[in-house]
């Protein structure tokens, strides 16, 4: 898995012209994008452009006012075990231990598994995120980073076809966040996992994503640009900023977030094709 775009094939998941409207307010509209197998796509934008709603629609937890999401050739009509979600707040059940939280997810995926098998699989999943020792602990006895690791273990344990992440690291301190980003990067690369992530952190997007979708500010938010991340993988946080092209990429995205996300907001320019927003390769 080289992480480059298989542009010619049909995407695994396709978002087709979705919109979210309230009476008198359009949060976003005419959103088209695809996520290919093995690809890591980041959606980057300011708060208020409907990022979380988009992720919830992909997860099947929410429905668009218009348009549809097609996954594996079929329009989705609800949540599925094939699309695991890592929530912003870890969303662990506080009355269950770390192991039981993962085992609960596994028991939904594999209802026929006996208890012992669920336990072992849960322990294995926790070991993969470095939590072998903390399996018996309740979430209240875990640090913020450890809780999110359990959330990651729970999502990956059920072997989803696509991983959906809603700003999974935003509640963590910078040090923990960095460590977890690298961990997710490693796991996703190892598994060849298809992933979609919402974020407002530029460095996080550069570290993880193959493609970065840049959203204008709401209301009437749209995808203004698709940034192709050509930096080679695996990307290591410690050396990433020495890579040639890194600064061009980062500056481009920052410029977008600071000014262009605002100036491009509202009515699209004439000749705008919402299905094919411009693609750019700032890193060369």
């Amino acid at each position: 898995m080289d992480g480059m775009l298989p542009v010619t094939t049909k995407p695994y998941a396709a978002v087709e012209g979705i919109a979210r409207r309230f009476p008198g307010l359009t949060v976003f509209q005419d959103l088209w994008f695809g996520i290919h197998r093995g690809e890591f796509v980041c959606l980057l934008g300011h708060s208020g452009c409907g990022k979380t709603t988009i992720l919830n629609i992909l997860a099947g937890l929410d429905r668009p006012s218009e348009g549809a999401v097609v996954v594996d050739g079929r329009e989705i009509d609800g949540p599925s075990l094939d699309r695991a979600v890592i929530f912003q707040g870890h969303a662990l059940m506080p009355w269950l231990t770390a192991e039981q939280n993962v085992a609960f997810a596994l028991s939904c995926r594999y209802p026929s598994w006996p208890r012992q098998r669920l336990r072992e699989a849960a322990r294995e999943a926790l070991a993969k995120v470095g939590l072998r020792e903390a399996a018996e602990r309740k979430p209240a006895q875990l640090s913020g980073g450890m809780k999110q690791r359990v959330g990651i273990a729970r999502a990956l344990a059920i072997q989803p076809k696509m991983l959906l992440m809603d700003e999974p690291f935003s509640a963590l301190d910078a040090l923990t966040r960095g460590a977890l980003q690298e961990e997710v990067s490693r796991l996703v690369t190892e598994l060849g996992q298809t992933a979609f992530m919402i974020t407002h952190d530029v460095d996080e997007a550069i570290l993880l994503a193959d493609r970065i979708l840049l959203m204008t500010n709401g209301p009437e938010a749209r995808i203004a640009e698709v940034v192709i991340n050509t930096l080679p993988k695996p990307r290591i946080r410690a050396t990433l900023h020495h890579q040639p092209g890194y600064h061009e990429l980062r500056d481009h995205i920052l410029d977008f977030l600071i000014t262009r996300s605002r100036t491009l907001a509202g009515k699209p320019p004439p000749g705008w094709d919402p299905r094919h927003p411009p693609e750019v390769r700032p890193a060369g």
Partner: protein
Amino acid sequence: MAAQVPFWRAAVLSLLLLAALLIGWEMAVKGAGGSAGPAVDPELAALLSPAAAAGGRSAMPAPSEIGARLLELLSDPFHRRGTNDQGIGIQIAYSLGRVAAGFSLAALIAIPLGFVIGMSPLLNAALNPFIQVLRPVSPLAWMPLALYTIKDSSVSSIFVIFICSVWPMLINTAFGVASVRREWLNVARTLEAGTWRTAFRVILPAAAPTILTGMRISIGIAWLVIVAAEMLVGGTGIGYWVWNQWNNLSIADIVIAILMIGLVGLALDRLLALAARAVAWQE
């Protein structure tokens, strides 16, 4: 928040207060009996009450007499010599049996119903007026209706226990279920957990502490109400026993009954508190 005090200091103070109360009481009763002398005509006194006949001495027993009587009662708490002479243990057992029956019945109905009300905003809104009107009604107000329809007095008192303990459990269950975190439900949905698995593995444990709080309030109310209900319907039970001792004017027995009712109520509350601790969770 008050600062933590060592257990033994509080315990010593409690014992001192108890001792002061008992000594004061003993002296008040003994002193009043000795010096005051007969305040009323002896013949009239004999008609009025046995205590007055005993030389104007108050019917209020001293703690020492109550203690002796307590030992006597507790030496054979489960005796049965006819319908009007049964041990205090038997009477408490009758009351506990009625509370257990009424409370269990209430839990069997209130918890599933509260679950449904908590899950459905429509049902919640529709049933709320009924609950709000019926909840503040004194359970004893149901008694005549229960006696008329059920006829059996013992079953009627169980019904009264049922009706008074159903509301806190119903309201707390509905509230607990309705306030389960959206994110946990979303986790269950993305895992395709299904209705039953979500209900039993997510909603029930999430709401369990709130449900247990409702059960704890209910058992407290049930124990309060059973005494009054048994005073009304008579026959058996600690409430009936209190009323019987009032008719006999054996104040010592009434004081003992109060103590017993208090201790059993405490035990019931502790029991539910233990259950609540078993299902408690913290974030």
